[in-house]
């Protein structure tokens, strides 16, 4: 196998693949793409030169995983890579640290507070991080529920503007 490429690759062939992947929206959070979320780990070529897309699931039971695979296949087919393969890798395990700056900006614009940087492991026990409200940026917010509409989000409320909002939890 060839060495893996990332989204910034200069190789024109891989660039086209990454462009196609950057069109694939997350089925449950369609404001961001699977590249924004860091679900696509790398793209390599197998012995015959066909692309192999390595992806990692966000949560083990994420119901979107299968749909994401189908969407990747369709996007690469449209981009002229009908023989692309998809491989799932579990280790290293997906972390919210892999969400790109662009992805964090899009989440905020959609009213979802992105994960607070550097609050991963240490914050799992004890007091949670101060989560800024995606609407008014106040950090005077409180957690209403640990689990929200999807496994990856918690439900918060802003005490300043009184709006409820979702927080993309650190993992």
């Amino acid at each position, binding site marked *: 196998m060839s060495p893996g490429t990332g989204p910034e690759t200069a190789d024109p062939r891989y660039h086209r693949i990454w462009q196609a992947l950057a069109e694939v929206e997350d089925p449950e959070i369609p404001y961001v793409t699977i590249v924004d979320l860091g679900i696509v780990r790398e793209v390599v070529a197998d012995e015959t030169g066909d692309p192999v897309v390595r992806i990692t699931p966000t949560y*083990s*039971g994420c119901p979107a995983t299968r749909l994401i695979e189908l969407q990747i296949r369709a996007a690469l087919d449209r981009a002229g890579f009908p023989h692309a393969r998809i491989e799932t*890798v*579990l*280790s290293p395990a997906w972390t919210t640290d892999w969400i790109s700056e662009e992805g964090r900006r899009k989440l905020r614009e959609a009213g979802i507070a992105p994960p607070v940087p550097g609050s991963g492991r240490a914050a799992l026990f004890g007091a949670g991080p101060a989560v800024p409200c995606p609407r008014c940026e106040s950090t005077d917010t409180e957690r209403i*529920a*640990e*689990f929200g*509409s999807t*496994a990856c989000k918690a439900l918060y409320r802003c005490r300043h503007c009184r709006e409820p909002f979702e927080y993309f939890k650190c993992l």
Partner: protein
Amino acid sequence: MAEDRARFEYLLRLGDNSLILGHRLSEMLGNAPALEEEMALVNVALDLIGQARLFLGYAGELEGAGRDEDALAYRRDVLDYRCALIVELPNGDFAHAIGRLFLISAFDFELYGALRESADRRLAAIAEKSLKEVTYHLRHAGEWVIRLGDGTEESHRRMQKALEDLWMYTGELFTPDALDEAMREAGIAPDLARLREGWDRRVDAVLREATLTRPAEGWMQSGGKDGRMHTEHLGYILAEMQFLQRAYPDARAW
């Protein structure tokens, strides 16, 4: 190979624990005390069923008999299941459902933490992934145990009773049998006595904060993880869980 067979059996224990507890939690759909709590418990169930797929999918490959995760989940009968008895118990009241989730999450937290060092690298990768999810389960269930224990007289009484009722099912998790020993010697699974120390510390800390009393050690039930004697509840779970796949084998769409 005999070694593959042993690993297959061990993976069934991991996968069946997650699958059956996940199924029990899914029964809270429509039954939790608040909408937010329902969302939480079924999200936990979803994580557990996802983990079960990873464990059982790998088990099926090791077995090499053409059974995938679905075949293992839906076409094994009671005596071929390898889950611990504690995950089979009915949910009971909310304190009982939460108490069970807390005790198991604390166990899984220790187990998956240790399995990250397993000589079986694929198992280690599943454990690494699962540990992150189980950490949230443990925190959520632990917060409830504290709130109920240190809550009203009624919630305290119920939480204490749940612990008393559940306690005799905790021994099985930490009592090694020949398979556990073989896995430990092969560097695949950790020493259960070591896990017990971490579990004790974590459980005791939460119980102390919850003003609850740790139940006395007494007679411990066993027979689930080795398939010797499941509780009568497992058959009812499978009857419901497997109905569709038994009635319409290989159904692909509906």
